[in-house]
C-alpha cells in the first residue's frame, strides 16, 4: 500500500478523499492555488504545495506542476477527485511514465469513454443499449415507418440540418407517421434548405439513472446499484437518491449487468459510473460513462457501506476486489442534496463570498461532506459548492424526513444558498412519490412563484431585537467613555456582566 498520496483537487472532494486516506494510515498531500491558501483541504492535509495562481488552467490543471508537487513531497500516487484532471488521459499517461501511480482507470479507458462517438460504437459492440435511431437520413416514408416501428412509438423525426430543438416532430403512432414524415421533410426543406430527416426513439419523460461500478486490475467487475439523478437543472444535478423509486428489481439487475459489460468493454479499472436514460416503460439506454468518482458517490456508500475511495486506492495499489456481486450489501435508502452558494431566486447565480458561519446538521443518519468552514471564502474562481448533505434511512420515507430535518438544522450565513430550495423540492408531490424525471425541475420552476416564507414575522422580530441590542450596546459603549473607569457606572457594569453571563448581551 502507498504510504503517501497527493490529492490533485480542492474543496469537499479533496477533504473527503483525505479522510479515507487517513483511515488507511496514508499521509496526505494537498495542492492549492494562490486563491486557496486558506481553503479547508489545505488545512486538512499533512503537507501542502502551492501549484500556481487562482486560474485552474494555471494551477489545478497544470499536469507538470502537479507531478512536480508529487515528486517533491515523495507522494507515491495521485488521486484526481472529480473534475480538473480526473478524466484527462494525458495526465494519466504522463503519470504512467513516472513511478507515481494514477488512482483511476487506464488512459485508454478514459479516452475510449471520453469521445462520444467512439464510446457509442464500443458500447454498441458490447451489446449495451443506445437510444435507437437511424444512422443515416431516410427519404422513404415506408422505410422510415418500418424503422420507427422497430424502435417503438413515440419517435422523433429530426431534421438533419436542424439543431437546438428546431425541426423536430414527435410522432405517437404508426397511423400519423406517413403524414408527419412528409410534413417534417417539407418543413425541413423550407426552413433549412435541406429535406433530410432522421428518425430517433423519443424518450417520454426519462429519468437519469446511473450505475456505480468497481473493477480491479484482474478484470473482476461488480456494480453497486443505481443512483437516480433526475433532479437536475441544465444538466446540473441537484438531488440524487438511491434506490430509484420507480426502478423494478428486474430492471435494476439488468441495468447493473449492462453497466458491468460497458466497463469490461474498455478493460475498466477502479471506480466508474455508467449513466443511462430510463424511460417510463423501464427501457434504458446508455448515455455516457464517467471514468472517475462521482460527486454523488456518498449515497452509494450509505446503502452498501462500501468506502469507494478506499477501494479506488486499494485497486490502484494492486489489490483484488474481495467482493462478489452477490455479496454487495444493499440496505435502506439514501439521498444527497448539493448545498451551493447560489441564489435560486436569481437564476441560481453563484453567490461567492465570505461564509460567515456554517453549521452542519448532525445526529442519526446524517453525513455532511463540506468543503468550507466558518470564516472561509467561497472563491469566485471555482465551483461554489459549500457541502454535500447526505442522509440515510431504513426506507425512502425515513431518508427523506431526515433530509428535511437536516436541511432545517443547516445554518449558512454570509452567502446565499439553495437550502430552502432543496426543501421545496423535497416537499413537491412529484419528488415525494419518486416519479420525477429530468424535466421535473424546469416544470417546477415554471409553476413556482417564489419560496414560501412562513417565518417572516419571526425573522423581522429577530432582526429588530438584534438591531435594538446593537443600538443599546453602542449607546453603552459611548456612555462608558463618558464616565471613566471609576465613576458610578460600576453597578451598571456589574449588572451588564450578569447579563453577559446569561448571554443576554
Amino acid at each position, binding site marked *: 500500500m502507498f504510504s503517501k498520496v497527493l490529492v490533485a483537487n480542492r474543496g469537499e472532494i479533496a477533504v473527503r478523499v483525505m479522510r479515507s486516506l487517513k483511515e488507511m494510515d496514508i499521509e496526505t498531500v494537498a495542492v492549492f492555488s494562490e486563491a486557496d491558501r486558506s481553503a479547508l483541504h489545505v488545512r486538512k492535509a499533512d503537507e501542502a504545495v502551492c501549484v500556481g495562481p487562482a486560474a485552474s488552467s494555471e494551477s489545478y490543471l497544470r499536469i507538470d506542476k502537479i507531478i512536480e508537487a508529487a515528486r517533491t513531497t515523495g507522494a507515491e500516487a495521485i488521486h484526481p477527485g472529480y473534475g480538473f484532471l480526473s478524466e484527462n488521459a494525458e495526465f494519466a499517461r504522463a503519470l504512467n511514465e513516472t513511478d507515481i501511480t494514477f488512482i483511476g482507470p487506464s488512459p485508454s479507458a478514459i479516452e475510449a469513454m471520453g469521445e462520444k462517438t467512439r464510446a457509442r460504437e464500443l458500447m454498441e459492440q458490447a451489446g449495451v443499449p443506445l437510444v435507437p435511431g437511424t444512422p443515416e437520413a431516410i427519404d422513404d416514408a415506408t422505410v422510415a415507418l418500418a424503422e420507427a416501428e422497430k424502435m417503438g412509438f413515440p419517435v422523433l423525426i429530426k431534421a438533419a440540418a436542424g439543431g437546438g430543438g428546431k425541426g423536430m416532430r414527435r410522432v405517437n403512432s404508426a397511423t400519423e407517421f406517413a403524414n408527419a414524415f412528409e410534413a417534417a421533410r417539407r418543413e425541413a426543406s423550407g426552413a433549412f434548405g435541406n429535406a433530410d430527416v432522421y428518425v430517433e426513439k423519443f424518450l417520454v419523460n426519462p429519468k437519469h439513472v446511473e450505475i456505480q461500478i468497481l473493477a480491479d486490475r484482474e478484470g473482476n467487475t461488480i456494480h453497486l446499484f443505481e443512483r437516480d439523478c433526475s433532479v437536475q437543472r441544465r444538466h446540473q444535478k441537484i438531488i440524487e437518491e438511491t434506490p430509484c423509486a420507480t426502478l423494478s428489481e428486474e430492471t435494476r439487475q439488468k441495468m447493473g449487468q449492462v453497466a458491468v459489460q460497458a466497463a469490461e468493454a474498455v478493460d475498466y479499472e477502479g471506480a466508474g459510473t455508467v449513466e443511462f436514460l430510463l424511460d417510463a416503460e423501464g427501457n434504458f439506454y446508455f448515455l455516457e460513462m464517467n471514468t472517475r468518482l462521482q460527486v454523488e458517490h456518498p449515497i452509494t456508500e450509505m446503502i452498501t457501506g462500501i468506502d469507494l475511495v478506499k477501494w479506488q486506492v486499494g485497486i490502484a495499489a494492486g489489490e483484488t476486489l474481495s467482493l462478489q456481486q452477490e455479496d454487495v450489501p444493499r440496505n435502506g435508502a439514501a439521498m444527497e442534496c448539493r448545498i451551493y452558494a447560489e441564489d435560486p431566486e436569481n437564476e441560481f447565480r453563484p453567490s461567492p463570498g465570505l461564509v460567515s458561519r456554517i453549521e452542519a446538521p448532525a445526529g442519526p443518519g446524517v453525513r455532511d461532506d463540506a468543503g468550507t468552514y466558518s470564516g472561509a471564502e467561497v472563491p469566485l474562481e471555482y465551483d461554489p459548492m459549500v457541502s454535500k448533505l447526505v442522509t440515510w434511512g431504513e426506507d425512502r420515507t425515513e431518508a427523506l424526513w431526515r433530509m428535511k430535518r437536516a436541511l432545517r438544522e443547516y445554518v449558512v450565513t454570509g452567502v446565499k444558498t439553495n437550502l430552502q430550495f432543496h426543501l421545496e423540492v423535497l416537499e413537491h408531490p412529484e419528488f415525494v412519490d419518486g416519479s420525477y424525471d429530468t424535466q421535473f425541475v424546469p416544470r417546477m420552476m415554471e409553476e413556482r412563484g417564489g419560496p414560501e416564507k412562513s417565518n417572516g414575522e*419571526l425573522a423581522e422580530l429577530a432582526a429588530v431585537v438584534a438591531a435594538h441590542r446593537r443600538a443599546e450596546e453602542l449607546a453603552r459603549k459611548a456612555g462608558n467613555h463618558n464616565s471613566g473607569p471609576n465613576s458610578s457606572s460600576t453597578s451598571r457594569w456589574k449588572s451588564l456582566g450578569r447579563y453577559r453571563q446569561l448571554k443576554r448581551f
Partner: protein
Amino acid sequence: MSRSREYTVFNGDDEQRSWEVETLENGRYRVTKPDGETIEVDAIAPDDDRLHLLVEGKSVDAALFRRDSTYQVQIDEQRHDIEVLNERELRMRAAEAVTAGGGSPQLVSPMAGLVVKVDAEVGQTVEAGDRIVVVEAMKMENDLEAHRSGVIEEIPVQAGDSVEIDDVLAVIGEPDDE
C-alpha cells in the same frame, strides 16, 4: 436601559413596518409589533451571528448576519433579508435623500462616539469652522465644525445618539440655497 426605541423595517416588499422595543429590568424586551400587539421576548446571543428568542413559549433559533443595516436572518431553512433602521438612521436616510445629487453638503463624523451636544439648529446660518456638534470618544470631547459656510438644512442627530464613522451629523446648504 429602559428607553423605548423605534425601528422601521423594510422587508423587501417595499412595505415599511414600525416596531418598538423596550428593554425591561429583567433583561427581557417588551416589543410592540406593527399591528400594535405587545409581546415580551427573552433573547440571548448564543454566539456571534446567532440570536435565540423565547417568544410566548416558542423557541426561535435565528442565525443573523448583518451588513450595514440589513440583517440576513435564517430560521429553519428559510432566509430573510430585512433592513432595520433606528430613529437616527431613518432621519439620516431622509437627510441623504434631501441632499442626493448635491455637492457635498454633508458634515460627516470622522469618528465613532457619542453626541454630547448639538450647537446649531436647522435654518441657522453658519460659518465654516463654527462648532456644530460635539462628539465624545474615549474620554475626549471633539468639536466637529462646519466644513463650509451655509445654512443648516438638517441635523439628523441629537444629544445622546451614538454615531459611527461617516454618519451624517448635519447638512449645510449653500447660503444662496435659501
